[in-house]
Structure formats: structure tokens, C-alpha cells
């Protein structure tokens, strides 16, 4: 080997990817629980520019979704937000994001935080096997959820979180805004103000 970089101390970092359209208390509470359960040094929220696997509802620009995440985690030193996927010209493939992060921070131990539903479809992601070999996955499960057997071989890199089940979703929030209902308590107050100030999610579907 020509040269081996020596990195004695390493940080345990969670990567929380998603559209965050908008970010809500479910995301934040789960992130908080997972950080504590897995002793993560910090969690990086990574809003995607255009989701590869689903349609982006209401077509809210990435800059707004990024800004809402930034507001939601304001003042929390162990939550950070990244523009990595937003600023990328190419499609938001997670494998590129992970390799880019490792390139800059080879001593980080990465944990990708993902919902059970999304994880069970991970075999549709670009280079999913390589991804499962490269980083750990923390899966937010609900009682009764069972992982597909195709992932058995990768179990040493898959961890199930004991996260609380919070029945709040971004789609519920968008629907409530559209129908003029209150979204108080469903997301941080400054995010709520941002949504109204920029008149997000208020048009027809």
C-alpha cells in the first residue's frame, strides 16, 4: 500500500435524507431519539433537490425546503443541514452523497437514517448493494414491520431504531394548509411562519 491515512478518532454521524416537504416534529423527534440511542455525535439533514423515487408534491423549491430545515434545527448544535444534494447538478443518488461525504471526512462513521417503507424499496436505488456495504442504516420501524429477507445478508450493517411512532406526515401538513386548517404544534413555530410568509402549499394540487 503506497500510503495509509491514519485517522485515530472518528465521529459517528447520522445522515437524514428526505424531501422535508416540509420538515415536521416527527422528523425532529425521531432524529433526537436516534441520536441518543446510537450515540451519534451529530445528525446531518440532507434535503434532496429532486427526489429520484417519487414525485415532489407542490413543487416547492429546494431552497425553501432547505431554509425550513435550517429554521427547524436552529440553535441545536448536534443537528446540521447540508446543501450537498441541493447544489448537485446530477440526480440525487445517495451513493454519490455518501462517497462525497467520506471523501471529505474519511474518519466519519456514517449511519443513514431511513424509514422502513423506503428501506424496503432500497433495491431500486442506484448501486444499492454497494451502499449497504459502505454505510450503516438506521431504520425507523413501526410495530409489526418486517424487513424483506433480501437484506438478511447485510444485517451486520442494519440497525432498527426504538423510535416513537408519531403519526404526523408532511402530506397531512400540506393538506391542512390547503384546506385552511391550523398546523400549529405539527412543526416548529418558525417553520410555520416561514410557510405562511412565502405562501407555500397554498395553491391547488
Amino acid at each position: 500500500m503506497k500510503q495509509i491515512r491514519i485517522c485515530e478518532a472518528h465521529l459517528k454521524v447520522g445522515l437524514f435524507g428526505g424531501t422535508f416537504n416540509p420538515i415536521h416534529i416527527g422528523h425532529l423527534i425521531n432524529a433526537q431519539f436516534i441520536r441518543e440511542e446510537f450515540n451519534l455525535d451529530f445528525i446531518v439533514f440532507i434535503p434532496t433537490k429532486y427526489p429520484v423515487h417519487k414525485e415532489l408534491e407542490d413543487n416547492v423549491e429546494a431552497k425553501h425546503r432547505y431554509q425550513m430545515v435550517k429554521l427547524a434545527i436552529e440553535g441545536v448544535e448536534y443537528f446540521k443541514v447540508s446543501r450537498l444534494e441541493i447544489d448537485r447538478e446530477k440526480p440525487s443518488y445517495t451513493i454519490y452523497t455518501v462517497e462525497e461525504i467520506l471523501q471529505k471526512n474519511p474518519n466519519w462513521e456514517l449511519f443513514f437514517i431511513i424509514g422502513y417503507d423506503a428501506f424496503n424499496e432500497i433495491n431500486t436505488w442506484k448501486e444499492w448493494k454497494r451502499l449497504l456495504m459502505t454505510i450503516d442504516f438506521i431504520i425507523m420501524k413501526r410495530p409489526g414491520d418486517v424487513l424483506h429477507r433480501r437484506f438478511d445478508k447485510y444485517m451486520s450493517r442494519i440497525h432498527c431504531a426504538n423510535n416513537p411512532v408519531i403519526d404526523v406526515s408532511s402530506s397531512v401538513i400540506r393538506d391542512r394548509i390547503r384546506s385552511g386548517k391550523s398546523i400549529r404544534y405539527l412543526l416548529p413555530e418558525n417553520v410555520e411562519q416561514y410557510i405562511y410568509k412565502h405562501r407555500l402549499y397554498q395553491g391547488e394540487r
Partner: protein
Amino acid sequence: MTYRRRELIIVFIFCINICIGFVLGKFLVAKTVSGSSAISFFIARPLYAYHVINNKLYSSDPVERLTGYCTLYDLRIVDDAFLYERYKQEENIASKRIILQILALQGGKDLFHFLDEVFELSDTSLKKQMVTIVKQLYPHKLDSFAQKHKVDAQWIHTE
């Protein structure tokens, strides 16, 4: 020998090389990468693959090396002994973890002994990963492994 006949022999040898490369290519690249043979240098087909993998595996960039390990697995040319050695040499956690995962996927016959050997020298995350591998691949040896290395019972039951 006429010029035409010599030309035909060259084409024939080239074709034979390509055929051998298709049949034995992966095996020869694996042997060359692990340093136990250099024969693939003389065969046309594996040369390019060797060049690419070699550059990755011996790169000073940890992410390049990491993708090199994945490529070994993708091409099914994993050499367990080579990865055991690399596990000990690698300093960054991501590389060590990927090597363990590839070894687990490979399920080589010496893996248990390797885990037994390096367990005490590894940090907590790696130890947890090793326990999961033992639990999955060697369930009948889990108790003795856990006892010998004083494994936290929580790791066995929660992961």
C-alpha cells in the same frame, strides 16, 4: 513462413488470449491483486481490470480503496487472506467496516478465527458488527464467542 501465415498465427494467439481471459480472468486478477501470482500480466483480458482495481486498492485515497473493496466483491474475486491483512492495515473506520461486511457476505471458512483474533483489538462499532456476523453465520459458536470476549449481552439481544 509467409507473411500471411504469420499474421494468422498472431490473430490466433490473440483470440486464444481473449478466450483464456474470459474463462480465467477473474481468478487471475484475484491472484495478482493478492500478490500470489503475476501471470495475469501476460494475458490480455484481465490486464485492464487489474489496472483499475489495483489503482483503487493501492490508492492513498481511503474512498478509492473503499470502492476497490466493493469492486472485488462485485467481480466475485474476493481473496479472504488479502482482506484480513487489509483489515489490520486500514486505519479508518469506514474501510474496516466495509471489509467486515464483504467478508461476511463471502462467508469464508477462516472468518470465525479471524473475528476471534481481531475482536479485542477493534473498537466498539466494529465489535458490535462482529457480534452480528457471528450471530448470523455461526449461531452455534455465539455463546462461546460471547463468553470468551465478554460480549455485552445487550448487543446479542438487541441487534
